């Protein structure tokens, strides 16, 4: 799953370790999410959304376009 985590982190001038501390996860976890090797759990995704003050779907992109009601 694609995400904007690296960009959002860079905009705040945070290192991976700083972001990891704010999320209370390991630096490896942040790196794995940024590089798309690991999709976070829903609780962690919500934590990210609260930290960056954005909706989850603005941070993560599952590649699905259009309305799910279609």
């Amino acid at each position: 799953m694609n995400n904007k985590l690296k960009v959002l982190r860079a905009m705040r001038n945070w290192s991976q370790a700083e972001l990891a501390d704010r999320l209370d996860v390991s630096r490896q976890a942040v790196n794995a999410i940024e590089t798309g090797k690991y999709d976070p759990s829903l609780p962690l995704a919500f934590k990210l959304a609260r930290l960056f003050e954005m909706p989850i779907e603005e941070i993560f992109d599952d590649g699905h376009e259009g309305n799910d009601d279609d």
Partner: protein
Amino acid sequence: MTETRNMKRPMSPRRKRYTTGIILALLVGAVIGAVMQLGEPSNGTAGLVLLGDTPLTPGFATGAAILWTVGLAVCLVIYHRSVDDHEEHAYLWAGLAAWYTFTLSAPTWWVLHRASLAPAPDVMLLFVGALAVNVVVWLWLKYR
């Protein structure tokens, strides 16, 4: 900001619990291994005595069994209460890979042995094989 980056950050409670769990687990293994090694100075290759099948004294065997069971259980509780999302994911897949390794190898070896096509199954070899797969998969998923 640069100063903030260079400052050593204090450990979060989660990281403290995590580190404690890992250190305790290492200590449990080290204590059992060291006592076993000291008990057999002339008989075992250093570091491999844990995997041997030479007789042990009942006192030591009881102590080691209790230390392993209780000590490891405590360490695992601490570990699972402190791992993050990503590591838990790595741990679960590594555990599954280890279980599959055991599931594929143990019955295979056992039926071959019953037909006299293989020596008797070695429990420690099966355990170490599954553990090795567990460690490799865990390291790969956590640090790749």
